[in-house]
């Protein structure tokens, strides 16, 4: 399993009380689940992996959440950035880069990896087809389905949260096989009750540093009224 260089504060096993609260509120007929957007605000590459000159880099993002009644939902994306030199700020535009848009359920986990791009390497969506058949992904799917249709069980929810990390790890391992090196990787996970879905800027001020890359992102809740 791949090693994550930076773990966000949400990567901690929730307590039993938190899981009970999440299980009880995960699917109630109260207000519809909020629609969230995750936006990359800024990313600076300190070392592009080449001794001299510019390099093509790729940014892979995987967002996993409990999804709808059909089970877990995966939102994989790959963004390519050609000719990036050390110290460059990735050209993601003023509005930032949309990494996820949807209504998370039960849990929300995000995995981010910046790598040197290798010509011909498949994007993360294609890699995920392979991962979907892996043991962790199959187990996670079953757990999410059980949460969606059965009596919500805190134990199963706990397993499902850990399952997303296993799936993220499998995705990173597969990605590393393709790109042979990573510039920086990061993961975090949020719950409704404990973390309010992580809504807000991460980090609150400045940039997160993950090996040779620094970045900031934000989670926004859409107002649907």
């Amino acid at each position, binding site marked *: 399993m791949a090693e994550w260089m930076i773990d966000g504060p949400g990567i901690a096993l929730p307590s039993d009380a938190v899981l*009970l*609260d999440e299980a*009880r*509120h995960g*699917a*109630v*007929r*109260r*207000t*519809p*689940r909020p629609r969230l957007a995750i936006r990359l605000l800024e990313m600076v590459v300190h070392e592009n992996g080449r001794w001299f000159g510019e390099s093509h880099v790729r940014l892979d993002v995987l967002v996993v959440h409990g999804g*709808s*009644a059909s089970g877990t939902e995966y939102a994989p994306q790959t963004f390519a950035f050609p000719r990036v030199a050390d110290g460059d700020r990735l050209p993601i535009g003023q509005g930032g880069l949309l990494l996820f848009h949807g*209504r998370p*359920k039960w849990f929300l986990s995000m995995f981010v990896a910046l790598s040197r791009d290798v010509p011909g390497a498949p994007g993360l969506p294609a890699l995920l087809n392979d991962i979907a058949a892996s043991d962790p992904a199959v187990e996670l799917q079953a757990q999410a389905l059980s949460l*969606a*249709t*059965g*009596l*919500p069980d805190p134990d199963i929810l706990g397993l499902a949260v850990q399952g997303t990390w296993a799936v993220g790890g499998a995705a990173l391992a597969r990605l590393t096989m393709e790109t042979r090196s990573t510039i920086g990787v990061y993961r975090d996970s949020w719950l409704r009750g404990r973390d309010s879905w992580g809504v807000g800027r991460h980090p609150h001020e400045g940039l997160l540093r993950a090996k040779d890359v620094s970045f900031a992102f934000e989670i926004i809740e859409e107002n*649907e009224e």
Partner: protein
Amino acid sequence: MNHSGSQLTSSQRRRFLLLLDLAATKLRDALSQTESSDLAELRRRLRARKKGTDAAVAISLWLLSARAAERGHSDLAAHLYQGLVEVVPGEADFWYNLGNQWARSGEKDRALRAYDEALRLNPTFAWALFNRGCLLYDRKAYEAAVSDFLDAARHGCDLEQFAYSVVRRLVPLRGFVTALDMVSDPSLPERMRGQFARALGEVIDEARALDGWFLSRWPGTARADHDHAATLVLRAVLADVLRDSPRAPGLFFGRDHERYDVRELDESDLRESLWYFPPEGPPAPPDRTEQLATLRETLATSTLTASETTWALHYASGAIALSLLMDGANDWPTPVLRLAVPGRTVDGGRRADEEARAGLEEWISSNDGTSVADFTLGHFRSASDALTTLILSHREPDRDVIMLMGDDGPLLTDQGDVVTRPASLHLAQALWWHVEPVYREWVLAAAYTGRAEERLAALCHARRFNALAATELWSPLAPERWRRYRAQIAALHDAHICLADIQAALGEEAALVDQYTYEVFGESISGLTLTSRDSVVKTHEVNVIGGELRALFDAGMASLFPAAGLPPAVGQPLLLPSEPIPKTLLIVPYGYLRKIPVHGLPLVLQAVDDGTLERIVYLPTASFAGRPRLPATRPRRILFIGHDPAGDIDYAHDLAALRAYGGDVTAVLGQEATCSRVQAELPHHDLVHFACHGDMDAHLAAGYLSLAGGRLYPWDVLEGAVPETVVMNSCLGISTERFEATSDGAVGLHDAFLAAGARSVIGSMWALPEWTGRAFADIFYRRLAAGEDSPQAVTSTQRELRSFTKDPFYWAAHACFGAWRS
């Protein structure tokens, strides 16, 4: 400086020189350069025994005395004025100023003589009359003081706070009603009468401290001047009742217009707080007979324009009579009957009490033609009727927003740096706090008279008032609609109680538990259990700090229910009926008890599992027990509403369950399920099933269902006809949330459906889990198809759900409201 004028004598010159030397020293910093040099010149001339004149000295003394007074050197100022009046004895103003300075330096005799001289020179000198009156008052020469005050008023005294100061002194002497005489005294200038009226209103407000809460003015309504005048008369009468109710030092349970309070008060504390008591010591034991006669007379002569206070007159009459019924029991928290109860009177005389009691009973019998019990209960009922009339007289909801400082209430809106809250919320809270003791003491009176019917009626009235207070927050409604819907809500809480009718309706198989909770310094839960044969009242003290029940609900409600089930201790204070367990249990909850799933309590579950108890139905009021029966036939026209923008609600599952039940099902789904479409469809169906999101709008104190493009609020339901059976398979269909400090809670959709004519309403008491929603729909309609009635089907469905989970959060969410008899 002009040195012309009469010559000073040698003695005068010496005395004035000393005085001027002293002033020059003490007032060095207060004088301008010119004034200092003039003074120096005058002193030099006097010291040199040059010719000095009284005019020059008078000017200097006048200037220096004014400066000394400004600087607070009252003693010096008095001596300077004394010199001034010696030189210029015919000026009333100088004597008045001299009197003021002597008064300030504690020389009361000299001050009085100075005022006397000022008034001899100018008998219409209003300021001097007032100030002399104040001195005479302090010397307990009350008659002379009052005479001076009235003369000052007649001569248009324009001192700041004159009217307030006079009324504040007059009330302890002669009471509020006598002070009121000044408002109508034709010898006083019109402007002065108005000032006295306003001042009297202010001091009556002040008299509310400690326990004069019933003197509060009806909140939130702008009134014309003549209404204020009419109300003032009644308030003055009530304030005199309070004034004539002496209190003894000791442990003091009080209630002002904001909160309850308990304090240890000694004699001086009491006198300071009860400033309106006679200055010569505590009043004699009250003549309650005279008070009742006054209240009766006032009620008979009060006008409609004073209706905002008539409730309090009835309340006071009822409370005084209640003291007879209580006969020595704890007197708190009824303020009026404080010390009307034996053992608390200042003279401690039991015999006098007994004589007073006998006299009171005789008066009630001869003047009212009723017993003390009927008199008491009748007045509480009249008080409540007046309150209902008042609250229904509001023309429209208050849409204002008020800005607050340092308030941390949950319904605040933070707009930048400005914290605001709806004025209507403020009003709703004020209304309830305003009148809560009326209902509590009516219940107390019912207990002392042993009248179960009265207790049920009192709580019907209380629930109705609460519901109407909640509707004060319905600010989106136009005035006409708002008034119409409030009338419907009032009708739902019909307060006409006939015990025999209810008992006949209960028959042999049903029992009704009317629950009541109140908090003063601790919390009590009281329940009246009514069967066809008898009625029993039990009261249970609940430990506010460690009470299982309270802790459960303070901790965050249903989401923190123990997964293994509600603990037996929670059920204990709810005072459910013991043997024999009825087949049908009707619960009439009150206040926060509306949040408790009685159907989930261990005692109740045991009876359900034994097969003894078949139905648990919640009623909005006890009077609802005799209302229409459940629909006699199966619904033919069924309406299904399914909506969820997030895709979480498997409403196709609900729909399939409903279709399996049979009938002609009209399905309105997704974006079709708008409020207007639903409103158009409701009148044409016998049963409606909602599978959508629902929540509580705390700002409007109303539950709602979330539909396409908008929300279905209680007022939308009240607009037209509704199906006989309503199933809200959504969150919070039964809106039991309290809003801030009010005792009861928001008006939920279940209330609205019942008010609009539905017979049976089923909804969730908290956030409904999706699993529960689907499983409930499956089993509930299967049970209905098997021939069970809707309350029966809810109970049996939940019994089946319990085979999957013991966690009440999942299986106990639904509750059944409304009719209960097949």
